[in-house]
């Protein structure tokens, strides 16, 4: 599915419907992946289960869908995107194939990465999605390089660079922003602030006023937005992307949202107050978007139809992933390098 191409002057309902669909697809994907990942990894007190279809740490973006949807609705297929360990939503919103993505999580040859990367490294270069990353903040320099390359090559592509609230305490955040600004590169930095870094509330680990204040300290214009309000994210992204395309250089968006699930799917997040989650769920982006659609007079049946289509889509993806063959063992030796291929020991 290609990224949304609705026009800026669409009516709010026309704008919101495809955003709602993108979010619903992400939510459905995350829920299905969560289900298939029980026992995926020994951590957070959970033990691993050899029967788990999805293996290893699975970072869900449940509850954060509005950020991915709102940003990517303003990108073209040629634009680039770099992501984090929590990258399913970004990948889907950028237009990757949902079945290939599920196959990747299942370790199938038909996966986006031929089963070589799994959730933490999911990528679809064909739609400009340059990869999730297992190292916090590591996508930032890569994004900056892609933007630098676009500028050198005279391409019109811009880069959306997603990272978490925890990532702004790693060095590459400073280095990457400084670099983007001195070379006036076309990058939209998106700090997807879900308030947690693994088991730790990020606030206590972050000095000053956070991502936007830091960006301004480096000379980069920055805005903040309610990251659960998809129309707000969309509008802000539209504005910032327009500035970037007009040559104004890098911009940063701080989107405040909430990590509904644990750090990884097997993490029960026992370290946080359940009431915090409860109140956060009241601001669930899909719920908010549903209410907004109703308020805008969109028929319930229209929304229900989207929900059904999405359910069918995810069921088909799951079925395909279940029946797809596992990656061939020989693939272990492919895509490593050309020179020296064969000299494996």
């Amino acid at each position, binding site marked *: 599915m290609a990224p949304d191409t609705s026009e800026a002057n669409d009516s709010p309902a026309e704008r919101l419907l495809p955003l709602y669909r993108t979010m619903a697809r992400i939510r459905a994907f995350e829920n299905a992946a969560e289900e298939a990942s029980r026992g*995926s*990894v*020994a*951590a*957070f*007190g959970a*033990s*691993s289960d050899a029967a788990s279809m*999805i*293996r*290893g*740490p699975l970072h869900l973006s449940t509850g954060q869908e509005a950020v991915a949807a709102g940003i990517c609705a303003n990108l073209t297929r040629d634009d680039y995107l770099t992501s984090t360990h929590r990258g399913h939503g970004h990948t889907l919103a950028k237009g990757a194939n949902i079945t290939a993505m599920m196959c*990747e999580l299942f*370790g*199938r*040859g038909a*996966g986006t*990465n031929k*089963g*070589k*990367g*799994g959730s*933490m*490294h999911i990528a679809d270069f064909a739609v400009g999605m340059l990869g999730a*990353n*297992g*190292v*916090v*903040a590591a996508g930032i320099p890569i994004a900056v390089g892609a933007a630098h390359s676009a500028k050198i090559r005279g391409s019109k592509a811009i880069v959306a660079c997603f990272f978490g609230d*925890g*990532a702004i*305490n*790693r*060095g590459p955040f400073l280095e990457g922003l400084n670099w983007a600004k001195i070379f006036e590169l076309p990058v939209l930095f998106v700090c997807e602030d879900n308030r947690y*870094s*693994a*088991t*730790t509330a990020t606030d*206590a*680990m*972050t000095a000053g006023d956070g991502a936007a204040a830091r960006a301004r300290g480096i000379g980069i214009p920055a805005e903040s937005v309610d990251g659960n309000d998809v129309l707000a994210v969309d509008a802000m992204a539209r504005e910032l992307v327009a500035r970037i395309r007009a040559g104004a250089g890098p911009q940063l968006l701080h989107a405040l949202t909430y990590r509904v699930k644990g*750090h990884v799917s097997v993490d029960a997040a026992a*370290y946080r107050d359940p009431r915090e989650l409860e109140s956060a769920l009241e601001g669930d982006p899909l719920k908010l978007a549903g209410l907004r659609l109703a308020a805008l007079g969109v028929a319930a049946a229209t929304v229900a139809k989207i929900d059904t289509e999405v359910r069918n889509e995810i069921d088909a993806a799951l079925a395909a992933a279940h029946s797809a063959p*596992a*990656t*061939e*063992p020989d*693939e*272990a*030796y492919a895509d*490593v390098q050309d020179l*020296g291929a064969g*000299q*494996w*020991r």
Partner: protein
Amino acid sequence: MALMSYAQAACSALAGAMRADAGVVALGEDVGNGGVFGQYRGLREEFGASRVIDTPISEATIMGAAVGMALTGLRPVVEMRVVDFALCAIDEIVNQAAKNRYMFGGQGRVPLVARLPIGIWSGSAAQHSQSLEAWFAHIPGLVVVTPATPADNYALLAAAIECGDPVIYMEHKELWGLEGEVPPEPTAVLGKARIARGGTDLTLLSWSGMLHTALAAAEQAALQGVSVEVIDLRTIWPWDRETVLESASRTGCLLVAHEAVQAAGFGAEIAATVAEALGIPVKRVGAARIPVGYARTLENVARISTQQLLQELKEFLNNRGRKRSMR
């Protein structure tokens, strides 16, 4: 004698050190909540947040700050979760921690322990599955330790904290849940290997997670009439040449097996040393020089299984003495 998991054994050693010495502190991401593998469980409750220090995601500064702490009277234990993330702190480990004492002419000491777990972590793919013990063995100033059992994790972590040199302490990412008896008196010291199983036909040397594969292969070899001596190296640097050379000269051949990529792995150092010193047949079994893939099928190619190790061992034994032909 208590039954403990590998993670609990580490907790227990660290708690003991913290009780004995107010200068011992732990710092790193998520240590306050017990560590994502439970390897710090209960410590903040006992020692407080000023000694069990939750840090930002700032690997370079976690290591660098630990150097500053160690220079000024503390004994920090540094949490890096997995060795793969410590790649964000390599300058601090190699240029700062390891060289400090020497380059400042012995004015300071850097008594820190950096926990950098190695190994394939099931389903975690290329960026979370590395075994880089050979890197740190190559760096003067560092001690490198790879415990394979709960008892050793207890004894060796305690010893590492006492050691006074900067220690790269490499637990295995998949051993956290392994249970075993842990005697209250430490049964391991730094720098000393352990003959984990006696044997006469061949010396099989290993460490960390691969030790368990080596023991399983030896078990099966015994059923087939081959007597394999298994050594757990325990400490990668300084490694226990005496024990290894004595065993190898007794059995007449040495096989080194490790989970790390074989090419330029630490097995090369051992095999080269033994070949130089004894001139006996040597052989290594390590991972192919490929990244670890996500799919189970791919991950399995990157692992050394018991069957594979047994197979290599047999071929080696059969060919020994007939190695002068060109391959």
